């Protein structure tokens, strides 16, 4: 089966986020007084081939932890959806 994964990597709470803070500081000048708490992160999309959802999830999580995020400062969040059931071409 083929799964579509989407990983969002954000700085862990408490870790300084200069990019988010800089964007937030710029907002009032752009007329966005109603926007707050900006956090900047990274996002990844990829496809995982796996026999079942559990395996796919485990693989995607491994990838997020080992390569996409640096767990020392970042957390990652995974959303997984079925893209093509077994046997069907993607």
């Amino acid at each position, binding site marked *: 089966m083929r799964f579509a994964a989407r990983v969002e990597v954000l*700085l*862990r709470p*408490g*870790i*300084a*986020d*200069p990019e988010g*803070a*800089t964007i937030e*500081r710029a907002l009032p000048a752009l007329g966005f007084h109603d926007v707050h708490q900006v956090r900047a992160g990274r996002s990844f999309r990829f496809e995982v081939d796996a026999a079942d959802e559990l395996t796919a999830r485990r693989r995607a999580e491994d990838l997020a932890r080992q390569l996409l995020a*640096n*767990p*020392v*400062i970042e957390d990652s969040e995974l959303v997984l959806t079925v893209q093509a059931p077994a046997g069907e071409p993607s």
Partner: protein
Amino acid sequence: MSSPDAGEPQPAPQLEPQPLPLHRALGLTDEELGRIVEILAREPNQLELALYGVMWSEHCSYKSSRRHLRRLPTTGDRVLVGPGENAGVIDAGDGIAVAIRIESHNHPSAIEPHQGAATGVGGILRDVFTMGARPLAVMDPLFFGPPDDARQRWLVEGVVAGISSYGNSVGVPTVGGELTFDPCYAGNPLVNVLCLGALPVDRLVLARATGAGNLAVLLGATTGRDGIGGVSVLASAGFSGGDDAKRPNVQVGDPFEEKRLIEACLALLDAGLVVGIQDLGGAGLACGTSELAARGGVGLDVDVLAVPRREPGMAPWEVMTSESQERMLAIVVPEAWPAVDALCRRWDVRASVIGTVTDDGSGVLPEATGHGDVGGSSSGRLRIFDGDAVVGDVPARSLADGAPVYDRPLREPADLASKRADDPTASEERGDCGVELRTMLLDPSWVYRQYDHQLFLNTVAGPGGDAALLRLAGPGLPPSDRGVAVTTDSAPRWCAIDPRAGVALVLAEAVANLACVGASPVAVVNCLNFGNPEHPEVMWQLSETVDGLAAACRAFGIPVIGGNVSLYNESTGSDILPTPVLGVLGLVERLRHRPPPVAVAEGASVVLLGCRRGPGDLPRPLGGSRWAVECRGRRHGELPPLDYGAHERVTGFVGSLVAEAVGGGAGAADGVAGQDLLDGVHDVSGGGLAVALAEMAVTGDIGVRVEGIDGHQELFTELPSRLLATTRYPDELCARAKEAGVPAEVIGVGGGDRFVVEELVDLPMHQLARSWVRSLADRLEPV
């Protein structure tokens, strides 16, 4: 025990006195706690204990190294500020002073290479602009394990990207550095950073608070829980990797904030709006407040509630010890505050009054023998408020200078004699010299191409040469024709064999590097990276290094104006090789032309300057050479001897020729003008003649034919005090060398498309060039 106070006994501030063993968790020994109780004449509360914990850490207090560092020579005609301040400062002439400082960011970089290195750059810049100097150049000596596994590559990539992203963005060029691979750094990489800045002499400011009633103003970023305990946990404890508990302490750097902070602080200083200023680095406000007060001999009241925070719920001790980056603490007279506030607003730099200078000189410290420098001296009190409540009250100097000074046991390694006797010079047979040469080539351009090295239009010779050479110019500086040169050098393989002689050879190499760009050395800064000081052999290495450096500095007449000590560089129980890193500053009187490149030119003769043989039984010693270590795995033996007189003669000769060339003077009255005499110049150092010649051939993109080299020993020896010059006027050059008492011999000629050392090496240039160019990329970017 004498009373700590001249006035009323102070009630202990409101926090609960903590039962043991909190002090131990904070890195304090039982004896140290006893000393604190003696100083305060009561039990410290948790906040106070945290302050002592960070300020008395090895990193902040130099408690293991301090008594050794005193042996370094630190004075000289040009020295305006020696060790002890945030940066050393020398008078460069023309009303310009140059500030320089080196620091390590080893442990943070092992945990998060990108941010660890980035915040290392941020910290060193603050040390320099604290002095009123505009940071003009950064250098980055780096040490990693061999980059042959994913983790080392991750470390190299991350550290280089961190320096690149921070340095480039903050707008300070990185003009050089060092790159060393050795297995001893695999678990504990070293990331040292050096910064050089310049200022009009009369803008020099020292980090001290003065004037009761003056305001303490916090500038820059908000305060979060970054690096809390980082000083004691990250810098003082051994690091073995994968340690989750240490992770939340990682600090993230913000070069954009730092850029605004630099501009705002220099503008404040230009406008004469601050009376004292101090960067907040390791130990944060604890360090900044206590050092400002201690140096000024005044007291300071600080309110943690006034500190702008990034996170809710921070306790006073967290505010005081946070290592949030990009912050400065300035002392301002109250009347100047509106102007300070307005100027900071222009640069969008946060400025908050967080305290007041007091003239409370009542914090007299009790006498104590065998401890810090503060026995019996008067000191202002550092009082910490949480709104109206006093939550901490300690003599400022007891934090800043009161840490115990340790005389740790030291011991020469038992196997020293047998290791020295195990010399490779005679016992290692000659192999395929061409193959060996190719494995030793290392082109650091993979690293320095990622660094902006040209900003400020000062960089006459950037990374890739022997030393960086810069015009001495910058926004706000008086006009000048002068140049400054700077080089960083190290040789752990030498220092492992003999730390005393090794560090002297390192300084000799630095002097030779400076000579290649026409500069005379004026000051040294050093970063002493060592293992665990609780190991007597490590303390012996440190002590030997200090003595060796002191002797070499005296011999060359160059003072040490600053330094940094990084201990506990170990992983899984083994210490790194002793790694003193030297940054040496040189001056050029007049800089109008480019120095000769590190290159061979078509048809030019290659002249070897300096004595080709050492004295004694091993005239071409290979002990400690890159060849012995990297090609033969032999790490022991004898180091080549250093003859200071001969070294000064040859470096003085080359230095003055190059100075003539870059100064564009009239040159010799009869004969060839200075700027025409030399087509290329390079010192012979790591890898010996073979590597030096190869680097010149590859850079010149031209072949070379060398003859009369007496076997692999002469090809690879790292015997000091030798330089290579290429010239179209070999007779003139040799004659002038002879006049100066410098041996000189033509050994080859540039041309063709092969690299030939007769009977030893014969390689097509394209092959040599490929080995050079791909030396790093092939290992760091395997396909």
